[in-house]
């Protein structure tokens, strides 16, 4: 690796990290001065990071085949005496650069969008400056997560994005629902992070180092730091614990409960954090730690199973929701399930590709929903408006494009990425593939249910709302994302430049370990029918599902209520998200509260009682001695006489 390339990468990395951070600090510190212009530090900071990410990409493209990744040390952070220091270092390889581009690019668009979104009638909302400061802080944290070259930086970025998520979900902190949602997100993440932390400890104990390169090399060789062989049990344990953290961050079963509630935050937050970037950190982590995961077939199976189950579960729940953002949230959970399924069936490049395209169309959909919400005066419940096609033409157009991409309609980006995962899933086990297909159908159905109910039909707006199309600042990002939603998919077709770009990263891990391939070769289709047949089937099913949604919600709108009435329990189960929240509440929250009350009782009675007993001794002594100080002169005289009597007695008897 040429030294000046390393130096350039180092500078780019530092810019990527520090520019958004500086933007955050400036936006926060100069808030009283900036007021309505507080978006500028953030836009400039994130813009600089995006430019640096492009620079990194250009350099990474020029990596030759042997030097696939660059470990760029920046400085020694904590140097312990044994020589193993925690160093701030960047690992820059194709995966990193893809993630960086996605993160900084989508962030930039969201920040630009927010400039108009966080205003009411042109005047900035209360807390405008806070919003932009937190957004920039988030970008910094996410970049740290992605750029990190060791597990410490990964964990640092992990926790920091969790913090920013909490701050941003609870942005409207005066609303109790928002505050509760923020708490819930943080706590559920914490549960996952506990497993993640244990995994890091285990890695350190086993391998003596936390640097990616060293750890993965030891895993591939199958040895521990002290020379002992690496057992299946240990590597499976590490992988499952890492998976624990990934499930928490990426909202997979059973730690998915925070994501729907996180929709209490503003729509840009939902778009950026809970669709395009933060929640994908789990997928990124599994992809990055491919060596560990692929060393344990059991862990891979678990990952695939969790991904598939979550995808199906979330898709079914999304079928009956009426809050647009909630539908999109469940859709996100479902698509993340696809990504997990992807890595679980050794198709990590397909999973990252899906992550890439999903970032575009999901962000597009969330921002579009935000545009609708802005026009509807803050209401996002689909039952209260309809037929917005004519009122909000541009929003409708971009939203439609995003929905087509999500539904996996052929020629849009989602089709290509999703299809590949399903294909790989079939090669692994037919159950996984079938679940993938069914979920795809459901996805198309509920997505267009949303489109038809909200944008088609009779024009209805809530009381007193003047529906108007959004301004320039909001529409331009929507257009850009729409272009990405259509075009990004073509990076994975034909010569598959995207996958080739990522090839060196996964060569030794996922591809090598993939039992279906027997060892080499990237994910090329095996035969014409196997590949294209699946494409035709999935594409056709998607279009059929769209048609079904059209019929049910536009032509014969009396059918859905009939279905609901005939299956009341099923409908209730879906509407209440399978009662998972209630289950957690009963199984975990209530006992925790109860034990808290017990502790309070213990503290009051036991500990305070002990303290009282200990203080009772001096108090008792004082009480007894208080009689000598009654203030009455005769008491004092009595004491004197008594003392004198004692002394006289002593003297006389002693002298006898």
């Amino acid at each position, binding site marked *: 690796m040429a030294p000046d390339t390393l130096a350039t990468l180092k500078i780019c990395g530092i810019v990527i990290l520090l520019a958004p951070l500086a933007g955050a600090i400036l936006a926060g510190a100069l808030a009283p001065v900036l007021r309505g212009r507080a978006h500028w530090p953030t836009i400039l900071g994130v813009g600089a990071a995006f430019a640096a990410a492009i620079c990194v990409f250009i350099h990474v493209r020029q990596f030759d085949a042997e030097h696939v990744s660059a470990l760029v040390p920046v400085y020694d952070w904590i140097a312990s005496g044994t020589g193993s220091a925690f160093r701030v270092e960047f690992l820059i390889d194709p995966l990193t650069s893809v993630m960086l581009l996605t993160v900084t690019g989508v962030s930039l668009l969201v920040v630009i969008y927010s400039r108009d979104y966080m205003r009411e009638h042109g005047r900035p909302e209360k807390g405008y400056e806070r919003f932009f400061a937190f957004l920039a802080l988030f970008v910094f944290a996410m970049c740290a997560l992605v750029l990190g070259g060791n597990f410490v930086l990964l964990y640092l970025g992990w926790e920091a994005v969790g913090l920013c998520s909490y701050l941003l979900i609870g942005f409207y902190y005066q609303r109790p629902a928002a505050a509760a949602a923020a708490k819930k997100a943080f706590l559920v993440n914490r549960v996952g992070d506990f497993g993640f932390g244990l995994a890091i400890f285990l890695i350190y104990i086993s391998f003596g180092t936390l640097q990616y390169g060293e750890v993965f090399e030891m895993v591939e060789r199958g040895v521990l730091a002290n020379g002992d062989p690496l057992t299946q049990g240990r590597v499976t344990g590490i992988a499952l614990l890492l998976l624990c953290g990934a499930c928490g961050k990426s909202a997979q079963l059973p730690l998915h409960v925070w994501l729907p509630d996180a929709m209490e935050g503003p729509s840009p937050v939902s778009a950026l954090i809970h669709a395009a970037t933060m929640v994908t950190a789990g997928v990124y982590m599994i992809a990055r730690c491919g060596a560990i995961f692929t060393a344990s077939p059991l862990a891979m199976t678990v990952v695939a199973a969790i991904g598939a189950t979550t995808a199906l579960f979330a898709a079914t729940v999304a079928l009956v929701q009426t809050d647009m953002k909630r539908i999109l949230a469940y859709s996100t959970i479902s698509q993340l399930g696809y990504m997990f399924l992807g890595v679980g069936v050794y198709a990590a490049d397909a999973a990252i590709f899906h992550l890439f395209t999903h970032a575009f169309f999901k962000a597009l959909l969330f921002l579009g929903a935000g545009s609708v919400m802005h026009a509807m005066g803050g209401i996002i419940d689909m039952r209260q408006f309809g037929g917005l096609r004519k009122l909000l033409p541009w929003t409708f157009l971009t939203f439609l494009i995003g929905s087509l991409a999500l539904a996996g309609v052929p020629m849009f980006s989602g089709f290509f990425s999703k299809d590949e995962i399903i294909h790989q899933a079939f090669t692994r086990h037919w159950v996984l593939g079938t679940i993938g297909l069914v979920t795809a159908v459901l996805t198309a159905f509920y997505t267009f249910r949303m489109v038809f109910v909200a944008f088609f039909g009779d024009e209805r707006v809530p009381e007193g709302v003047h529906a108007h199309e959004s301004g320039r600042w909001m529409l331009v990002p929507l257009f850009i994302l729409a272009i990405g939603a259509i075009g990004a998919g073509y990076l994975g077709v034909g010569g598959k430049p995207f996958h080739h770009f990522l090839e060196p990263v996964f060569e030794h891990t996922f591809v090598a370990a993939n039992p279906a391939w027997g060892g080499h070769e990237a994910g090329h289709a095996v035969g014409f029918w196997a590949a294209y047949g699946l494409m035709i089937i999935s594409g056709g099913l998607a279009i059929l599902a769209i048609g079904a949604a059209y019929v049910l919600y536009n032509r014969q709108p009396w059918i859905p209520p009939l279905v609901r009435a005939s299956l009341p329990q099923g409908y209730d189960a879906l509407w209440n998200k399978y009662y998972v929240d209630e289950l957690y509440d009963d199984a975990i929250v209530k006992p925790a509260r109860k034990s808290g009350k017990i502790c309070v009782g213990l503290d009051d009675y036991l500990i305070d009682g002990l303290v009282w007993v200990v203080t009772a001794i001096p108090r008792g002594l004082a009480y007894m001695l*208080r009689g000598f*100080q*009654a*203030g*009455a*002169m*005769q008491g004092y*005289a*009595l004491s004197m*006489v008594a003392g004198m009597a004692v002394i006289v007695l002593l003297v006389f008897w002693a002298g006898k």
Partner: protein
Amino acid sequence: MSPVADYLILGSILFALGLVGFLSRRNLIVMFLSTEVMFQGVVVNAVAFARLHHHLEGQAFALFLLVIAAVEAGLALGMIVLLYRRRGTLDAEAWSIMRG
């Protein structure tokens, strides 16, 4: 055997009685009266010792003791009157501000 043992014992009895009265009565006047009883005991003792030593020093001492007793009685009674005027009671325990 001591020639004055009986008088000494008598003196100490009077003194003790006066002491008991001083310590246990609450009425200010009776308290001071008890101190006068203590004085009587001391006078008896002083004179007994004078007889023992065959000189009159003890008696002179008792005489001056008498003067002191008179002085003390006058001033004490004056103050008792003032205290009584202040609180309206002769209770010694009315003056326990320095309690605690």
